[in-house]
């Protein structure tokens, strides 16, 4: 199994380790998922080892054109330092992966993609890569998410000079720590809280993690709470809520398609769906009674199956089971009363927006 540079540190901190996307990762620490979730939501800071995700650099004079071809996003519109969430689409308009692409300069972009898709994505990108563009993994870097109400305050303590108050949401900059370490910091995350993702050399990662852990506002958070935090925000998780057959329009992330993007891989289907609509769509589900509806749970309306949960579980904030799934748009709409079928029991539920908790991320400067 693969490990991150923080593997021993997690064990020393009492983490319960599990296999995730081929990596040995902490699913929770001693406090457990619920407390870790609440800690991150309640104005403190949770730190997450997300070093299993792939960090890459794409560089070359034609790189804007290339990235605007393999995704539905027009990167000629990006200003330097802007991080864009987008998807890699296949020729059928399905999603190969969702990822964050940040413009460093006109000819250099920083790309972060899912751990489980790393090899697949890299193979796809290399297959489509024109001569003159380099696409290389930053294998010597760890990625640490610092999330929660006090993230800015805590992280500022590590910086030599600058103040992260000046870094807007979905922007990335290069910073220097007091100890001289150079890091990339993006105001990005997967929790819905204000926060940052710090790309740091593997050799400096464990010390940074332990120094963060020593701050009184900070606790390490495992993948379990990372999942419940993102589920409350309605963020899709690749391999569950998105896959090779799902289009960005079906997934409800049509905003990744730039108005000026008309000829990207898979654009035939995506643009058609954008104007004509879709047969199935990602919708949220909230249970109205006790019980937990997980991935795979059938949702029925008037006795008829109308969809299946692609993700689901207990929401520590709402104290009920929530989820998201794909629904037949001809018979399902937000507000519908439905039932979730859990072990032959029909639990009353309602179709909702997949966003269950309001994001506290700092708004984007447009």
């Amino acid at each position, binding site marked *: 199994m693969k490990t991150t540079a923080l593997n021993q540190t997690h064990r020393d901190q009492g983490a319960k380790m599990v296999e995730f996307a081929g990596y040995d990762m902490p*699913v929770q620490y001693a406090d457990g*998922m619920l407390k870790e979730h609440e800690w991150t939501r309640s104005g403190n800071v949770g730190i997450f080892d997300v070093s299993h995700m792939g960090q890459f650099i794409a560089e070359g004079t034609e790189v804007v054109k290339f990235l605007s071809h393999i995704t539905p996003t027009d990167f000629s519109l990006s200003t330097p330092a802007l991080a864009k969430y987008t998807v890699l689409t296949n020729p059928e308009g399905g999603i190969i992966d969702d990822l964050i692409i940040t413009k460093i300069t006109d000819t250099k972009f920083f790309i972060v993609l899912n751990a489980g898709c790393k090899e697949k994505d890299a193979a796809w990108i290399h297959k489509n890569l024109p001569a003159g563009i380099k696409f290389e993994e930053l294998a010597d870097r760890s990625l640490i998410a610092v999330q929660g109400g006090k993230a800015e305050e805590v992280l500022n303590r590590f910086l030599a000079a600058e103040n992260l108050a000046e870094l807007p949401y979905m922007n990335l900059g290069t910073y220097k720590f007091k100890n001289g370490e150079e890091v990339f910091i993006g105001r990005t995350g997967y929790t819905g809280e204000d926060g940052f993702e710090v790309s740091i050399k593997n050799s400096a990662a464990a010390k940074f993690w332990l120094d963060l852990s020593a701050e009184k506002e900070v606790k390490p958070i495992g993948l379990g709470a990372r999942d419940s935090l993102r589920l409350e925000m309605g963020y899709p998780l690749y391999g569950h809520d998105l896959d090779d057959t799902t289009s960005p329009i079906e997934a409800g992330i049509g905003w990744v398609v730039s108005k000026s993007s008309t000829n990207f891989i898979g654009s035939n289907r995506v643009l058609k769906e954008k104007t004509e609509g879709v047969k199935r769509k990602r919708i949220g589900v909230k249970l109205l009674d006790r019980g937990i509806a997980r991935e795979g749970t059938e949702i029925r309306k008037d006795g008829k199956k109308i969809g299946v949960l692609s993700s689901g579980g207990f929401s520590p904030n709402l104290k009920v089971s929530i989820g998201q799934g794909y629904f037949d748009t001809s018979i399902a709409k937000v507000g519908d009363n439905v039932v979730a079928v859990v072990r032959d029991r029909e639990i009353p539920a309602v179709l909702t927006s997949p966003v269950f908790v309001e994001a506290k991320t700092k708004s984007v400067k447009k």
Partner: protein
Amino acid sequence: MKFTKDHEWIKVEGDIATIGITEYAAEALGELVYVELPKVGNKYGKHDAFAVVESSKSASDVYIPVSGEVVAINESLTSQPELVNNSAYKDGWIAKVKMSNTTDLTDAMDEANYKEFLQDK
């Protein structure tokens, strides 16, 4: 109190058995967010799945260690499933069962044997 290989505990008074899951099981599952209780009056054969305990990460069946009829359930668990974590052997009991066969328990372990069983895992 006796223990099973599936990490249930059972306490017998007369022909009534009180059943729960062990501290080890509760710890392994993590904090519970839901317990699906059986219905009073339901009859089960030994080893039938008769309740479900769910944590954030997973749902697990609870197997009844004896045959019998459910005569009481711990209603507190519907609003406070975490009682199983905080008090596995007392406030976290799941159900009381009227045993139809008191010899069902011959294969259950006593505390010392259960501890040994856990160490061998």
